[in-house]
């Protein structure tokens, strides 16, 4: 889709250009911060220190990144099949509901060794099911998936409110949340897991689901580029007519891909419900599903890119929170503006600089040996 950068080597396309984009976003942010009378260098320092400067901050950064990896991968896999899944938010919500129901039902009876795979499965199945309906409607009825997945976000939100207020609420409580799961329904925190192997680490919401997130990256990368199913998925995404010619059923590919996408988004529920809150509650998805779109765009829909973009967004979330806390003149809204600028420059304007970079690259290239362009 991006013919601009086709003549550029990969390291520029996926390495240099994103760095330039982030730098531009930070420069514009710096201008805004200067205008309100603060020192942009101080702000950047506070932000980076807050996100990466101490153990608790790192823990938070990685915890946010975990959610972004799940939703980023969800958008990325759909994108390879030519589908734009905007329903990550609702699928994540449903994934959490799945985990929550399993925990509420079995946390007294089963040990963590069984609850963990059950929770994993439940979040994937609930997320996948929530994506399967729009997928079916797109594949067999021609309803546009962008519209239906957006609508399913609202349905998921309404359903959760109903369930939390009327069905799953802890009796005798005012706030719409379920009872806390018993200990066997808690995913181990990373600081606990690290303590077992003798590494002390500060307390944070970071839990073992980050390991699962990284495994998902590896698995998804292998699926998309190393299996015949991924081959069919990409064929449908790039050239549906050629896929039909090859004997691929695009409808089946659409449904399967959206189930994978929804399942990945559903794992946000695993991280949040089983990993952090240990109970079902409202609004734990907090926009991660939508941010996943920016993460995937920025990561060029590649698992490694998604991990890097997730880390960046983790830094922005955590560092931004610190910044709003430490520098009173920079409000929460200002932090959102900075995050927005990063999304703008690296998502919507991702290829803005590509023609200039290309020109510079081609001006510099002839001076190097012709071996610079790989044989």
């Amino acid at each position, binding site marked *: 889709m991006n013919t601009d950068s*086709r003549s550029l080597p990969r390291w520029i396309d996926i390495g240099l250009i994103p760095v330039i984009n982030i730098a531009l976003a930070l420069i514009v942010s710096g201008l805004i911060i200067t205008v309100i009378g603060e020192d942009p260098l101080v702000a950047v320092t506070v932000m980076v220190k807050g996100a990466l400067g101490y153990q608790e901050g790192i823990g938070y950064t990685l915890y946010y990144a975990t959610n972004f990896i799940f939703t980023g991968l969800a958008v990325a896999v759909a994108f390879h099949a030519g589908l734009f899944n905007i329903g990550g938010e609702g699928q994540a919500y449903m994934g959490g509901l799945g985990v929550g129901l399993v925990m509420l039902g079995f946390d007294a009876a089963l040990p963590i060794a069984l609850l963990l795979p059950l929770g994993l499965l439940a979040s994937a199945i609930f997320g996948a099911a929530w994506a399967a309906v729009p997928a079916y409607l797109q594949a067999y009825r021609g309803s546009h998936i962008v519209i239906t997945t957006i609508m399913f976000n609202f349905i998921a939100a309404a359903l959760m409110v109903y369930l939390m207020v009327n069905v799953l609420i802890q009796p005798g409580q005012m706030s719409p949340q379920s009872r806390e799961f018993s200990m066997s329904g808690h995913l181990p925190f990373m600081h606990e897991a690290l303590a077992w192997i003798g590494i002390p680490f500060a307390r944070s919401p970071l839990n073992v689901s980050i390991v699962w997130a990284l495994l998902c990256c590896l698995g998804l990368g292998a699926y998309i580029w*190393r299996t*015949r199913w991924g*081959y*069919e998925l990409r*064929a449908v995404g790039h050239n549906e007519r050629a896929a039909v010619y*090859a*004997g691929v059923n695009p409808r089946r590919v659409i449904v399967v891909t959206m189930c994978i996408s929804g399942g990945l988004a559903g794992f946000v529920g695993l991280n949040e419900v089983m990993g952090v809150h240990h109970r079902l509650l409202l609004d734990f998805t907090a926009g991660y599903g939508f941010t996943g779109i920016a993460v995937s765009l920025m990561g060029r829909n590649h698992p490694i890119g998604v991990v890097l973009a997730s880390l960046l967004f983790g830094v922005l979330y955590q560092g931004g929170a610190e910044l709003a806390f430490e520098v009173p003149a920079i409000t929460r809204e200002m932090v959102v503006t900075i995050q927005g600028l990063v999304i703008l420059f690296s998502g919507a304007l991702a290829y803005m600089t590509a023609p200039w970079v290309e020109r510079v690259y081609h001006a510099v290239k002839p001076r190097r040996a012709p071996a610079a362009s790989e044989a």
Partner: protein
Amino acid sequence: MSTGDDRLTNDRAAVPSSPPPAIELHGISKSFGPVQANQNVSMTIAAGDIHGIVGENGAGKSTLMSILYGFYEADQGEIRVAGQSVNIASPDKAIAAGIGMVHQHFMLVDTFTVLENVMMGAESGVLLSGSITAARSELKRLEAEYDLYVDPKAVIEDLPVGELQRVEILKALYRGAKVLILDEPTGVLTPQETEQLFRILKALKAQGGTVILITHKLREIMAITDTVTVMRHGKVVASKTTAETSEAELAELMVGRKIRAELQRTEVAAGAVALRVGHLTVRDAYQVPRVDDVSFEIRAHEIVGVAGVSGNGQSELLEALSGILPVDDGLFEIGGRRITPNAPCDPAQLRALHLAHVPEDRQRLGMVGEFSARESAILGYHNDPLYQAGFMFNQVAIKAKCADLMTQFDVRPPLPEALSANLSGGNQQKLILARELNRAPDVLLVGQPTRGVDIGAIEFIHRQLIELRDRGCAILLVSVELEEIMALSDRILVMFEGRIVAELPAADADERSLGLLMANAAPVETAH
């Protein structure tokens, strides 16, 4: 070669009174990743000439013209138009410099009228009415000047392909083109339409226009051009005055070796029926029959050619027989299986019945441009256990297969990792043919096997098809090239408006009679 060069050099150092050359290219280079499409290309095209550019596929003709028309920017080199050095960064710059282009694939809005298409992008003012009046009178003038008539009120989708091309030419002239580039203009035309096109080009020349004609048909070069440039492997290998060269010499320059003119074919007795089609009907979304009650048989050891002006149901016939389009009525039988509206068969199942399909539109159907060549080389066969290692692809086996196919069919560059879209048209075609022929199919459906393919590769592809037939394959060949149909086929079917209007042994066919049958101008006759 020296004569041509002298002539061109003389032009360059022209005396002040004679006009500067219409187009001069100096040292144009362009590469796509590892593929060097143009390498230090220089040529001079005198004003008022019809200049031909010939070359094998992948020789860099289309890239060069895309640079001249502003689709690509050259990595190096200079373009001069009428003596002025210009920077053509986009097609509008090309248009402003008086360069117009008629693409191989027409760039028209199907639901607009001719008039609307011609003026599109060249309107002025807030309201359209002024532009419409201006465009109408300008069209009248062009019509008178070049004998180039198309009904301005006709809607594009209703027009035959020959007229669409005239609309494209009108579009370019309307924008004041002094230099007209035509990329493989005759590929989709009947012989009669080709003659008409040539009359138009001669009228353009008579009015002082310059024409650049990219084609792989040397006969057309000889018939109409004044000068000709031969390209090979991205470089110019010769510039000639057409009157001083010959078809044979050009062919040799293009390919870089002598080529055999006559196709060797042995008579082989036809075997058992391999594909039987009975009253097959395929309708489009509006329930209009595109293939209408078609019946025929193909036996082993037999090539049956389908002649016809494109758009008369040949594409739909191929797509129905390969399982892409559903059968609406009638049936076909292959490998003991009967495919009817109630018993459909998808392309994968048909492949399992030893049917192979080389589609007409290689870029849209035959391969995925964004895939590596290695991945395109297994399209349709990607579920073969040969390519699997557990859940994963066996990358080593796939790469080895692709390298093998590339060697056998001389695909250049022979890089399994190259992006499919970056291969030239002819090399894409060779890769697809390699993939499909490699399976030793019982039935082969092949559409436009040599469209946009150069002479050297045409000869090679034809030999492969004949060889496959000799080994017992039943081949259905659809082509708009009558020469190709007549050279390869044992029997010829003529399609018109979805029906088979004639069937005749290849020995009885000649270009004129087929042309008339294709236009349905002759009484319907059937040999059986």
